[in-house]
């Protein structure tokens, strides 16, 4: 479970590649990459608040897209910095279904050293694929 930022892909925006042994792990990694784009130290986020998230999409890659957009939505609407603690992704009647538990806290400028604000996940070169080692996602964030 990991991610790396790819400065050579997007000059004015932020690109990253996230990977994991399972689909759930790549969702955790990608979620952390989005939050790490905004905040220096993910370890500084204390799990004080929890949110459950249920998402459905016919396309698996767009399910990841929806999940990442949700992290940005919660940051903008409630100033919440959240990390995915547990997730389950299943296929039910031809739809991909995500159920996740997120934990984190309200942004505190004194403790959360800020980087750049993420406005949106883009579909530009958006990719989720199965690899020999598990799953890999490439994402460009609009900052």
């Amino acid at each position, binding site marked *: 479970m990991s991610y790396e930022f790819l400065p050579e892909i997007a000059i004015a925006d932020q690109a990253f590649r996230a990977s994991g042994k399972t689909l759930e792990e790549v969702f955790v990694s990608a979620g952390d990459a989005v939050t790490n784009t905004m905040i220096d130290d993910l370890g500084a986020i204390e799990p004080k608040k929890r949110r459950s998230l249920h998402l459905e999409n016919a396309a698996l890659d767009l399910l990841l897209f929806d999940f990442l957009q949700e992290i940005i939505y919660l940051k903008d609407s409630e*100033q919440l910095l959240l990390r995915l603690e547990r997730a389950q992704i299943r296929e039910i009647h031809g739809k991909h279904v995500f159920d996740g538990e997120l934990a984190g806290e309200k942004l505190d400028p004194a403790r959360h050293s800020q980087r*750049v604000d993420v406005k949106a996940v883009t579909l530009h070169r958006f990719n989720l694929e199965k690899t020999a080692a598990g799953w890999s996602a490439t994402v460009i964030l609009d900052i």
Partner: protein
Amino acid sequence: MIWELPVAYKEGMRVPARIYATEKLIEQMDETVYEQISNVATLPGITKYAFCMPDGHSGYGFPIGGVAAMDIENGGVISPGGIGFDINCGMRLVTTNLTEVQVRPRIKDLVEKLFQRVPAGVGSKGFVKLSRDEFRKVIEEGARWCVSHGYGWNEDLQLTEEEGCIEGADASLVSERAIDRGLEQIGTLG
């Protein structure tokens, strides 16, 4: 110099693509520029040429520096990629009565003051607190709402496109979730 990609360059191109650049600039342009500007040339209603300016580099859909005119009578489309996703994002040209000699030694102070006064960054909040109904008025009235609430001057409107309010805005078409995101951010930059 003008460099041209003919319609034969790619299937579906309706017009040729033209890139304005010196030889040195064209050598440095990444290949995505050719890919993207020739894609622009396939858009419905495009007139005469898909252009790319000397600053051309990889964008989303359009290259940065891409220019195209669409004929609405001829099936023309509005392309968000062509308009630009970061349009109006914190860029301002302000005329003052100050001279370079006065400003240059104090640029650092000026920038620090701007950072203090203009909320920006992750989770930043504006000083304007609005109800959802009032927020919808801002969406419809644009900069005119700001002037009528003391956040600007009439002269500002005269120097703004469409005098700061494009006719026909309908806030009922904006989703509740979009308003959730914008409500705290009004009055911030970015």
